[in-house]
């Protein structure tokens, strides 16, 4: 997902920058005509309609939806300054995993990374709460948990790993 997000962002940012450059260059040109107000209204409508479409499309399926407990593997992860504890070291590929995440001290962020150091999903670990996310690992291999919320002087050392193994045929 990240490369697509980057690409779309850079295109839109470049387009908006180009409009500003064009406006600056047009300072020597003719003054805006009477149609400027209509153009502004059009822009507001386009942004509004685009916003509604993107919002509906991106929220129609709730991004934090959890798999049913009967279908998913339950994995408990707890964090503290500056460690992660996972109650299993091997997770089968292809099966939804419900991560139940807690913290023993301050707020942490559980980020799951694949072996290419790409962030797959994350959730905050909040004192006094159990937070849950579901993720299905497609590929066997080594995965890491990195802390995504600043938690003190050894924040960057708060790393652990687990293995995803091929599902039994």
């Amino acid at each position: 997902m990240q490369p697509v997000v980057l690409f779309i962002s850079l295109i839109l940012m470049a387009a908006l920058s180009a409009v500003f450059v064009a406006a600056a260059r047009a300072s020597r040109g003719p003054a805006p005509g009477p149609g400027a107000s209509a153009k502004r209204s059009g822009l507001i409508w386009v942004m509004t309609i685009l916003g509604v479409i993107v919002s509906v499309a991106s929220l129609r399926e709730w991004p934090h939806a959890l798999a049913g407990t009967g279908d998913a593997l339950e994995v408990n992860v707890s964090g503290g300054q500056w460690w992660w504890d996972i109650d299993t070291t091997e997770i089968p590929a292809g099966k939804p995993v419900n991560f139940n995440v807690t913290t023993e001290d301050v707020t942490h962020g559980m980020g799951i990374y694949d072996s290419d150091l790409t962030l797959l999903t994350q959730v905050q670990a909040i004192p006094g709460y159990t937070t849950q996310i579901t993720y299905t690992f497609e590929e066997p291999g080594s995965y890491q948990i990195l802390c995504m919320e600043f938690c003190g002087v050894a924040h960057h050392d708060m790393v652990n790993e687990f293995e995803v193994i091929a599902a039994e045929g």
Partner: protein
Amino acid sequence: MSTVSENYVPGHAAAAPQAGAVKLTMVLSGAVFALMMVFGLLMRAAQGQWIDLDAALFYQLLTAHGAGMVGTAALSGAAIMWYFCGRHLVLSGGIFWAFLGLFLLGVVLILGAIFIGGYGGAWTFLFPLPALSGGAWEAGAAAAFMLGYTAIGVGFLLYYLELGRRIHARYGSLVRALGWNLILGREDNDPPPPAIVAAAAVTIFNSIGIILGAAVLVASLVHLLVPGFEVDALLAKNLIYFFGHVFINASIYMAVTAVYEILPEYTGKPWKSNRLFAIAWNAVLIFVMAVYWHHLLQDVVMPPWMLVVGQLVSYFSGIPLIAVTAFSTFLYVRGSKMTWDLASSLLVLSVAGWSVGSVPASIDGMISVNKVMHNTMWVPGHFHTYLLLGEVAMAFGFMAWLVRGKTISQMDGLDRAAFVTYLAGAAGFVTVFLFSGAASIPRRWAVHYEEWLAHDRIGTLFGGLVVLGTLVFVLRFAARLGRREG
């Protein structure tokens, strides 16, 4: 008590009695901006393994950089808005000096907490981290840090109380100052100018933000003194992010008054309040306060409707910015035959940077995107875009205008070189952050993996250009301050 008629002093002269205080504030702001940028440069160089920084010192610099930049953005924004509101209101100089004094007291406490006490809990003081340092700092250092925030907050509340009461005295009510006569189509022979509409809105939302910030600061301070006093961590996080989000946004919304008041000198077209302008500012008043939930999109125990509101408002708050402020800037500039000196170039750049920065911010505000971008380098990528190329550019543009003199002339060689250096450096710096975010590099890590070093080193080079451009802007401002207008 002043009457309405006593308060009304039209034109530039009203600002003159406090121009000295504002100029001093801008000198301080420029110096702190430069110092904080050097801190930022050191952190990027350390992440790139070009210099060796102890992790504890790295996180102290991180804390100073965050608190210093947010505080200075707000300080410079407040000075700008005070200056231009002085064109329409009579404001008490004593209040501004008290505000500045409390701000400096806060700075002393914060710097002492960090560099003497060793506090490195980030500018967000996320509960209960200040009390649980793992041995890195004592409770006294955390308390000093939060007392520093408290002093700054009290100063800002004084500032807004003075603004609010003067606006009320001059316009009858904050509702009228927010342009409701324009919105409702009622006759108003003396409509509030853009700077006053902005001041009314910011006074309301930033006062609310500071009061809620004070609540969580007090709770955190009590927790430091009495560890048995527990605070719900999620509630505290909501209060902190409401305060933090509103406060940093207020800095931009205060500084934009420089665009409203200065650009017309160049374009020859006054920036007037109208119905659309008033609607946009009233939308901003609501949006700024409702959007903070986009900081908590991965706090999945939050009520889902709040996260949905966070996503929706994150996107729709871009409409008043792009379709009103940015679009109006296009219209004012187009065909204006304006002269592009350092002040006008930086002010137009600031609207562009603010608008362009809203794009990656809005995209990150989508819950599904946020799952893989939250707390990666993507976040400093977008907020550096609308701060470095937005608020800070507004502040530097205002500073350049303050020392411009009466004659407007094209940029000379040094100004042009500084402008291009700053623009190229900042654009490259934030773009590297965005690429780093897309590469999943977490933010706020003192030590980086080998795979990430290329990002850090390229970012450091661009950061060096930003510091260079900034030094020229600030030194040029300081050098010209003493000159007489020509």
